[in-house]
């Protein structure tokens, strides 16, 4: 089957819940950014190629992000959400455990650091900032479209994105550490 369908040639696309909406809609904007984040994680994993454990961890996160993206690509009030798998606390714990593991090996931070250093750290910082943008857009989308009450699946999604940014921050520092590069503190 061809990859192109032609149904999006006039600026509209379909949500998982069947809605035909403008490609400029906030919902498309939000999951588009999640796709961007996922691709950046792919670039980071490519640079970490020899570190099998790190790559496996990133691939798990890439898979989680596809799962999260499906929620952003579905209208919250649609029964199509019944077909979606929720982001679980286990997936959030996976990030938290990794953060704790990395942090144990890292020197304490007493100042802001400049994003960068080793190429892998630079990619991790870039991923972190895109992850924050994803979180901002998800918050805006979820709070606007679910004015009354944010349900548990969406709450978990927000926690996951929040934790992922922290994970990417410590991963960046870890990448510098294993490559023998000291994080550069911010000096005025």
């Amino acid at each position: 089957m061809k990859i192109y369908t032609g149904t999006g040639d006039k600026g509209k696309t379909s949500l998982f819940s069947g809605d035909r909406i403008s490609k400029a809609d906030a919902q498309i904007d939000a999951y588009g950014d999640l796709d961007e984040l996922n691709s950046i994680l792919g670039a980071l994993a490519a640079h970490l190629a020899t570190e099998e454990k790190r790559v496996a961890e990133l691939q798990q996160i890439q898979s989680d992000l596809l799962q999260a993206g499906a929620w952003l690509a579905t209208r919250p009030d649609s029964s199509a959400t019944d077909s979606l798998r929720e982001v679980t606390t286990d997936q959030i714990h996976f990030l938290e455990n990794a953060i704790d593991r990395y942090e144990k090996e890292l020197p304490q931070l007493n100042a802001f650091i400049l994003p960068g250093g080793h190429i892998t750290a630079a990619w991790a910082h870039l991923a972190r900032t895109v992850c924050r943008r994803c979180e901002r857009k998800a918050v805006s989308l979820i709070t606007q479209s679910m004015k009354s009450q944010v349900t548990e699946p969406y709450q978990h999604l927000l926690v996951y994105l929040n934790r992922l940014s922290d994970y990417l921050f410590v991963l960046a520092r870890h990448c510098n550490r294993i490559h023998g590069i000291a994080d550069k503190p911010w000096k005025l």
Partner: protein
Amino acid sequence: MALPINLGNCKVGSNLKTKVATHSAVLLKRKWLSHKSFEIMISSPPGFQFEPGQRVGLSMGGHTRDYSIVSAPQEAELIFCIRSVAGGKLSTLLSVADMGAPVSVYGPHGYFTFRSTTRSAVFVATGTGIAPFCSMTRSGISNFTLLHGVRRQEDLYYANQFQQNAHEYVPCLTAADPLPQKAFKGKVTAYLERHLPSGAYDFYLCGRQEMIRDATLLIDERFPDSLVYTEIFY
């Protein structure tokens, strides 16, 4: 792929929730429905569960292809409606395979399932794209409008079933043969354009990619605020 919403590189719909497994089955029956299309019945593998509208991967002789299930979940066997494609590997094999031949079944997959709302459902199929709607109607879903686009009358398989259960069943024929009663001469998209009253509907489109593209663009223009679910066969 079931509901081709494009998450960047990923067409969602392969699998988000259901457990997918590989099952073994055997070919039990084959019945020709027209010159080119036939129905096969295979044993339903133990523990195999699906929702009406879903598809599976069928595998034989090293070839695997997707097929939508025609039968309803409560039926004892799995039924498929297959077009014998000229030079096509698996469809040809399935058209001649001996009864009792082993078939591997992967799945179920997909999200082309019926979601009940307050709006009217319009099912649009071309050719064997009728398959998922068969499973739905055999499962008790009724009151929909169904357009079935085919070349000739002989390809209107399952017409009886739909005449009973559909609110409206409209065969759309493109060949120049004499028209059966209540049939429309032309493509399904022409019928949508000329005869479906304006409004918002839940559209379910299944079959050829060209039809799905043309119908979707037409729906955007003529039936805004409708929902559109699609299943592209080829």
